[in-house]
């Protein structure tokens, strides 16, 4: 097999990213009769269960900046974020008409209510609000979460017309463990040599995993990492930053590029957290649903959509990320009207101040077009980091 270059791989990923008709997922479905596709929104769903049912999990992260929202705005007031309106647009315009089911994870009240709207607007499509525990004791939150996953499994079995065995789930866990390892390898590589794997490229490569079968995506990740390691790129005089607050509505690609152009090496972020929500491998022996539950409760990432029961731990995930990646500052980038991110931000800022970590904050929408103010703000931030660290 001819090895692909970085630009070839990235070009393919960009084409997948820009394809709002989800052609790759459509083709997967059409390739064999009886195949089913289950869409999901941010932040996290256990994709292993969908995979175990022989179905394709399809990440739907809104419409981005290339989708003209015509119908979606008629469903939302001006003071509600953009992802639900562009998601509705994808629905009513027929772009996701091949999707057999939709999962709406527990993130915030807007996505929660969108689950009910989907039921009303698309009554023939399976639609489920996927509740997750906000308490993390095994015998309480763990039992509840296991129950919720078993309910989802039962629904998937009905749709698949077959039993999903523990071995099916174990196999899917193995496949996703491999995928997470590769995603984490890419993040580590990026944080160590950000000039070799720019955030805008890494974003596209990981985002491809939302529409491709996981096995194919893992191959793609391997190809990209190998190609990016092999290709020598010039080191720039950039500052390493962590970007946080983008866990739901995704930034336009231009925003990530603008941060890089303004002198930032984005060495960590919370884009598409589903790809690395579970930290480390999920065990493949024993009860697989229990194992997924344990991983969620005790080995998962932190985000504003999650309750932190221990006050001392509040914000420490972010502080550790900064330290582990060698970042010099944090950029809080929240979607306009995003309750979780914007309510969380002042607490996180206080914690960063205590840890002497510099930060800036701005808001965006998935269709933000004007990048000049963000470039100026980020550029000034980088300058100030250099100035103060040199002092």
């Amino acid at each position, binding site marked *: 097999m001819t090895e692909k270059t970085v630009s070839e791989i990235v070009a393919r990923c960009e084409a997948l990213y820009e394809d709002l008709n989800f052609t790759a997922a459509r083709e997967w479905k059409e390739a064999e009769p009886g195949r089913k596709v289950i869409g999901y929104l941010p932040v996290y769903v256990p994709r292993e269960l969908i995979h175990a049912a022989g179905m394709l999990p399809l990440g739907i992260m809104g419409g981005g900046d290339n989708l003209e929202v015509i119908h979606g705005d*008629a*469903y*939302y*007031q001006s*003071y*509600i974020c953009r992802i*639900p309106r562009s998601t509705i647009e994808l629905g009513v315009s027929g772009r996701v008409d091949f999707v057999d089911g939709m999962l709406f994870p*527990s*993130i*915030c*009240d*807007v996505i*929660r*209510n*969108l*689950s*009910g*709207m989907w*039921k*009303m*607007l698309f009554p023939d499509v399976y639609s*489920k*609000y996927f*509740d997750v*525990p*906000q*308490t993390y*004791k095994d*015998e*309480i*939150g763990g*039992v*509840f979460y296991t*129950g*919720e996953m078993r*309910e989802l499994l039962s629904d998937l079995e009905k749709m698949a017309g077959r039993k999903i065995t523990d071995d099916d789930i174990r196999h899917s866990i193995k496949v996703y463990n491999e995928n997470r390892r590769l995603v984490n390898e890419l993040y580590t590589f990026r944080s160590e040599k950000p000039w070799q794997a720019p955030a805008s490229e890494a974003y596209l490569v990981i985002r491809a995993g939302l529409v491709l079968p996981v096995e194919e995506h893992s191959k793609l990740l391997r190809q990209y990492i190998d190609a990016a390691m092999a290709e020598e790129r010039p080191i720039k005089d950039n500052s390493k930053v962590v970007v946080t607050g983008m866990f739901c509505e995704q930034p336009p690609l231009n925003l990530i590029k603008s941060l890089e152009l303004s002198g930032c090496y984005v060495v960590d972020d919370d884009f598409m957290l589903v790809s690395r929500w579970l930290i480390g491998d999920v065990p493949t022996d024993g009860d697989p649903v229990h194992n997924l539950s344990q991983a969620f409760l005790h080995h998962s990432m932190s985000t*504003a*959509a999650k*309750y*932190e*029961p221990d*006050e001392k731990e*509040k914000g420490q995930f972010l502080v550790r990320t900064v330290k582990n990646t060698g970042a010099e500052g944090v950029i809080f980038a*929240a979607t*306009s*009207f*995003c*309750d*979780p991110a*914007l*309510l*969380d*931000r*002042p*607490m996180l*800022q*206080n914690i960063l101040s205590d840890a002497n970590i510099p930060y800036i904050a701005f*808001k965006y929408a998935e269709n933000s077009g004007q990048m000049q103010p963000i470039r100026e703000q980020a550029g000034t931030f980088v300058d100030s980091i250099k100035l103060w660290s040199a002092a």
Partner: protein
Amino acid sequence: MRPSVVKAKPADALKDASMIKQKEMMANHYNRLTSSQENGEKVASTFVPGNLNELIMCFDLVNNLPEVNAIQSGLRKQSGAYIMEAERSGHSEDVCTYVKSDLGMMMKGNIGPNGKELPKPDVLLLSYTGCFTFLKWFELLREQYKCPTIFLQTPYMADGKVTPNMIQYMVKQLKEDVIPTLEEVSGVKFDIDRLREYLGKSAKAEDDLVYILQSGKNKPSPIDAYFGGIYYIGPIFGAFRGTDDAIDYYRFLREEVDQRMLKGLGPVTPDGPMGEEKYRLVVEGPPNYTSFRQFWKMFYEEGATVVASSYTKVGGTYDYGFRHDPDRPLETLAEYCLGVYTNRSLPMRIDMLTDYINEYEADGLLINSIKSCNSFSAGQLLIMREVEKRTGKPAAFIETDLVDPRYFSAANVKNRLESYFQMVEQKRSGKGVAA
């Protein structure tokens, strides 16, 4: 003929006897709160939806509700300054104004409606029911108060049903987290019979509350189930559910409503008895509190009475049959939390509003969409269309905010309401509804 209305000055707002009694109860409660330290009482802060007042009383704790404090600040026109204070300290202009009013009030000395400083809570009982913001709100308060925080998660009733998994999850949280921590904080041992006693009292008051709310089915309605309804729900959604005071209040209110029904009278407004009932409305969404009286006036001046509202169900959907059940004390608390209006799925909310329009023979649905409340607001435009389609009655949409005066545009709201009443007239006269 419409009775002549005596125009009263703002200070002379007329209230019926039950409203005066309710005000006294609330004032007494605030006095108890602000005297808690000298009286040796401990304080639990918690939220209205998912308010476990009966349980809190089992530990001799005094119930403090930050949402109600924000409402009081709104009614007293103090919330605007509090919100600005919170925004100056880094809180976004985009987020819930209850939260910012509460934080701003704290920054400015935490002075309650009785002019005295509200106590620091001894415990934050984070009943995460029907509103994501609650979760962050109490993380923010925990950062300030450094007191124990108890978390109780109420799963969302997304599929229109309560599953055994949901009940078991909640009961386990109550048994293994909530009750032991309340024992620890209060130093009082949990007595389930005491809880049963309070729950029995709750059910009695709930019977009368339902009778009162359903009196809106009469023509004319003896109550305004939105603006007047705010007064009616105060005690039972707040610190009085499970008390003799609540039983007495709702019995008293019921008698008052009965009297008005016997005489064929409408509700009492701040400007006196309501005149002719020209329009019967169902309202979805919370009210605006910073211009509460002005807002209400836009309705009663036009002869519009709200006969049913969803806001009066945020602290419990008793009219759908739920009663606290002393025989199943923990399960009943779980079911109570699960059933509150904002924990119900969008299709369930549509069903409720459609039922209200039909059962209360309303002329239509008015949605007051609140800028800073996504739990209510996200999806309301679909609700409006669907209810309109199902009932054939006109619906309208206005936008205000809970306690942020910057988002109450009186002229816009009045214009929209006047247009809406014209739509209702057109519909009645068979001319159809203008697009």
